[in-house]
């Protein structure tokens, strides 16, 4: 009888008749189903695999499986020169190659302790912010697709195309740039670059409003994202979240402000965090909002950079580029604010070689994704898709 009562606490239903316990029904729970979501699934954004345990449509447990895109980035770095690592960094977060190069370049410059021309800094910030906008456009567009809205995606890609052609004009490549070098740039920007960038800025301002009206303010979109996948600020910090994810939880943390690098301290821009009016702090909508608002801030930064930029007279983009990068023995950790969060490089040098002894990258997506298990518990499958989309993962950076 006691056994039955104990069982009654679980999945078996019992009832009392006088002093006797009568078994009503054994194991009311339905069978759980293992659902392999990915690596070939439209909304896992690449080759992420989630092994879900589902009870009907409710996901009781989700385990991410990684490594389908592993390319030994860190081992490769140990076998090439410092300068030759840069093309590899492009392939980490392939949607924001400029930002990855930027992070790597400032890390090695920290190790070398070299001074770089001021114009280089401005150009770096411009291309990095342009790339941030492009990356956020992909994030927002694909998030729309995840929730079933196809049109915003194509609007985003139309505008992203302009950025890509601008960056192609400057560097010669559309996605994998190899433009920001240690100590400088591959080339100076083309003659009319600033004018065309300003044209883009004036063109793009109204488009952000259009996107906001089409997607962010959409009743169904809000219903699908508001209050879904809430991550409290303290848990987010414990997980090591960064970037729009952490800001979505209400923490005003932006490395461009909190650990300033390059010329960011001279520039005037806001760090957008949700105020809890249109979204619940920490939910999917907040993360989406942060990205949408950051695009406006990036436009502001680009405008200021173009106004303040020193002229190209007597400028050589490679003047400070060392012939051979051979830092003193030591180690350094450098980080930059990427579209997806903090991208850090930890580099060890033995002082003799022109190749890094160790090059570890701290990937923001990987850290952000680690909370998936917590976030997905008890969610419906459509909400799981919404959550993955709001994390905005790029598998190139997760698997490295």
């Amino acid at each position: 009888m006691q056994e039955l009562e104990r069982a009654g606490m679980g999945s078996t239903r019992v009832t009392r008749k006088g002093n006797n316990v009568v078994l009503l029904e054994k194991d009311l729970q339905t069978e759980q189903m293992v659902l392999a979501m990915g690596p070939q699934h439209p909304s896992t954004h690449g080759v992420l695999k989630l092994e879900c345990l589902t009870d009907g449509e409710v996901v009781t447990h989700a385990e991410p499986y990684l490594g389908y895109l592993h390319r030994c980035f860190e081992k490769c770095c140990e076998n090439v020169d410092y300068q030759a690592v840069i093309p590899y960094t492009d392939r980490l977060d392939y949607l924001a190659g400029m930002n990855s190069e930027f992070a790597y370049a400032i890390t090695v410059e920290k190790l070398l302790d070299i001074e770089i021309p001021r114009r280089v800094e401005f150009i770096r910030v411009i291309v990095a912010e342009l790339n941030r906008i492009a990356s956020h456009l992909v994030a927002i567009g694909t998030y729309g697709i995840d929730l079933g809205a196809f049109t915003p995606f194509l609007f985003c890609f139309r505008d992203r195309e302009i950025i890509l052609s601008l960056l192609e004009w400057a560097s010669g490549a559309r996605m994998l740039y190899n433009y920001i070098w240690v100590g400088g740039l591959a080339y100076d920007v083309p003659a009319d670059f600033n004018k065309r960038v300003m044209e883009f800025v004036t063109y793009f301002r109204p488009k952000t409003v259009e996107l906001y009206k089409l997607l962010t303010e959409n009743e169904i979109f809000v219903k699908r994202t508001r209050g879904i996948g809430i991550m409290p600020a303290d848990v987010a910090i414990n997980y090591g979240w960064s970037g729009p994810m952490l800001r979505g939880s209400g923490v005003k943390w932006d490395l461009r402000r909190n650990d300033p690098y390059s010329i960011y301290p001279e520039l005037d821009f806001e760090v957008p965090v949700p105020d809890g009016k249109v979204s619940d702090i920490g939910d999917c909508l907040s993360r989406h909002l942060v990205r949408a608002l950051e695009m406006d801030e990036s436009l502001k930064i680009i405008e200021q950079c173009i106004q303040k930029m020193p002229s190209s007279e007597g400028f050589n983009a490679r003047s400070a580029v060392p012939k051979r990068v051979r830092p003193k023995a030591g180690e350094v950790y450098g980080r930059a604010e990427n579209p997806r969060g903090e991208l850090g490089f930890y580099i060890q040098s033995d002082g003799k070689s022109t190749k890094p002894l160790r090059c570890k990258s701290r990937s923001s997506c990987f850290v952000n994704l680690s909370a998936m298990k917590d976030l997905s518990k008890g969610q419906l499958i459509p909400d799981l898709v919404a959550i993955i989309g709001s994390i905005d993962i790029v598998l190139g950076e997760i698997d490295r």
Partner: protein
Amino acid sequence: MGNSLNAWSEALVGFTPMGLPLGLVILAAIPLVFIALYSLTYGVYGERKISAFMQDRLGPMEVGKWGILQTIADILKLLQKEDIVPTSADKFLFVIGPGVLFVGSFLAYAVLPFSSSFIGASLNVGLFFAIGIVAIEVVGILAAGWGSNNKWSLYGAVRSVAQIVSYEIPAAIALLCGAMMAGTLDMQKITMLQSGSYGFAHFFLFQSPIAWLPFLIYFIASLAEVNRAPFDIPEAESELVAGYFTEYSGMKFAVIFLAEYGSMFMVSAIISIVFLGGWNSPLPDIGSFALNAWTNGPVWGVFWIIMKGFFFIFVQMWLRWTLPRLRVDQLMYLCWKVLTPFAFVSFVLTAIWVIYVP
């Protein structure tokens, strides 16, 4: 030419093996099949062009002028594809699934009056038949989803069945409002009751002050019944890969795809028949300009109903390319807690209107 065609059709009418009017059935079926096939061929083409227009693209441009023949090329391509049946699938269910789906969506065409002199089967319970026959699609979807032996397909099928069965209730009640105003379930009679020299003013939508409510309810519910956005959760490609037809390829896939467009036109035609006068011209007579009389007639009828149907298909596409998708529970909430109560309200109000106001 005309004479020989007449003689040919009369000979066909006389074809009654074993006392069954098979010839008559064939005679009615030929134009119906053509209307259905044309509407869905250009439905698919229109969808691609309209979505392209909304998304700043060109859409199909290569096959024929402006890509007009794209759908035909697609069908030809799909015909040549290998017909794959997964080894672990339930072969019987897997094969009959698309067929049942296709039949279910096209059977309702039989009772749609395309003009004053052309209706496939003039049933006196035509509307009831049209509502009921759509439910056959559920069997096809369930067979396809279960027979595929794929978890995503199963999810899609379960969702789809839940959705279609639920949304039939508000849809049917909304249509009943129209039937009450007409006092008959015969589709042809419902249409005839809406004709008159004032054109659109005779349509049921403008005949009573509350008709817009069942009209709106039926339109929303019909979106869910044919699995169109924002209610396309059974085939939600970002969640369930492709829902119940994940495993289908080649012509079986094409059949499912065409069935979807077939039912899109079917619900659009039903809503135009019950609320917007079917084959009646919407143009009113203005003084001596007998616009209504000029634009009515058997051939004009076909034109009007197809135009009205295409208008609703356009609205469906417009919605699809604008809105995100609802979640499963939100969909059910909308059906049971919003649409169904309002459908009952409109039912009662229409009943009062019909009884107490002329």
